[in-house]
């Protein structure tokens, strides 16, 4: 698709900033909405390019964590859940599909993390550390560059 999503959104930002905002009453509520819409469009332009990559990478990383954890000394029900999640794959690369699977894996990760925190063993300490490092990478990959205001 050309122009790309980010180019289209930045075009909208330019339209809002140069053609719409100057026409608005400085004291109007709509002025605030217009400014915020422009900021949102700039942020969405950043996210649009990377969203699928972020989901695919994180889904894969979580499945690797689940696979490793499924061999550890955990409750059988959790091990089964980990194994099932570890065996899943994306059926397509639509954002909705990737997001739904990411939500499922995130729920499983919460269950695993909650359990691992309570186990006093070296493998659990190491797994806890790996989960925290994964969460930090995930948080870093979602940071956005705020436009200068």
């Amino acid at each position, binding site marked *: 698709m050309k122009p790309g999503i980010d180019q289209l959104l930045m075009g909208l930002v330019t339209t809002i900033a140069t053609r719409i905002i100057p026409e608005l009453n400085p*004291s109007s*509520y709509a*002025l*605030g*909405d217009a400014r*915020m*819409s422009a*900021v*949102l469009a700039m*942020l969405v332009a950043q996210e649009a390019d990377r969203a699928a990559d972020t989901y695919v990478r994180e889904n894969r990383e979580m499945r690797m964590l689940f696979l490793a954890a499924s061999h550890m000394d955990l409750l059988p029900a959790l091990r089964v859940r980990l194994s099932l999640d570890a065996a899943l794959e994306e059926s397509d690369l639509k954002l909705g599909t990737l997001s739904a699977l990411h*939500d499922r894996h*995130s*729920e499983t*990760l*919460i269950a695993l*993390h*909650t359990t691992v*925190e309570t186990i006093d063993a070296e493998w659990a*300490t190491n797994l*806890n*550390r790996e989960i*925290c*490092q994964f*969460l*930090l990478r*995930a*948080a*870093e990959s*979602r*940071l*956005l560059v*705020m436009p*200068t*205001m």
Partner: protein
Amino acid sequence: MLNEAQLLAVGQHIGSAVEVSDVRIASIRRFHGGASRETYAIDVSIAGSTHGMILRCDPGDSLIDTPRELEYAAFQSFEGSTVPVPRAISLCGDASLIGTPFFVMERIEGGEAASPFVADAYGAHRDAIGQQFFDLLGRINGADVNSSPLARIVDTPLADQCWVRELDYWTAQVEKNALQPEPILMAALRWLRRNPPPPAQRLSIIHGDYRNGNVLHDGAGRIIAVLDWEMAHIGDPLEDLAWALDPLWNLQDASRAAGLIDRAKAIALWEQASGLTFDEAAFKWWEMFATVKGIAIWISSGHASISGINTDPVLAFSAWYPKTLGNHALAKRFCELVG
């Protein structure tokens, strides 16, 4: 926006409060933002002379689920004190007048509020504003609780229960409004529950949202009003300090507390004005709690936005950008904790 009949009703209500019959609303303008409250600037004609006032009411889908009289009582608690607040004029708990309870207060003219996302928002007045900012927070947290009008509205927790009350409340908000699984936030909630802070050194009035965007300055280096008290309560004073020092409010300058002054100086000013002692170990808990509370609010924004009950773009923004910063801050802390 209020219709003619509602404006007439507000005018009559103000007339009753000031005991003047010739009162009418000459003009009204809504302030942008304020996801938790609708705020209007109104010009009120009282017996022929115009007075600038502020009308605050609940939007019905308020992100902050607190009664209208709470904020009114908070303003009253500092009226005539060294903490500058607008004078509270009248409170209307009767939702039939305009569809929601509301209150009216005087309008502070000439004041500006800084956006947390604008770098160097105070320019050359940054240091002066910073000193007042933390001094005023100390005055709020050092104020007498028992004699305050706020104490008649809100409950007073035991000193060792402040943390659990706040944690329970914001956990419930997350459970109610979460749009997706939140592994980082859940880890933080578990950590907070497992590692409680010591009891509050004293019970204080807590502003609840004390940050640089909620004070008005005169553009010449003076803070002229502390606003937005809708989350005021009685609790551990470190809660307010941790919120004020949360990196989200640093005006894109991580080297300064609230983007204003050196952190150690900010804490010293707060201690001096409040008569309280900064406890670094206890503060660690409240520091993480502040980030959690922020994320809980941003999650509520997302819920309000996606459900269509408040489609202001500012809610979609709040649900997204500040939450990414909060999650990053929490995840970094966890990596430090586990080594």
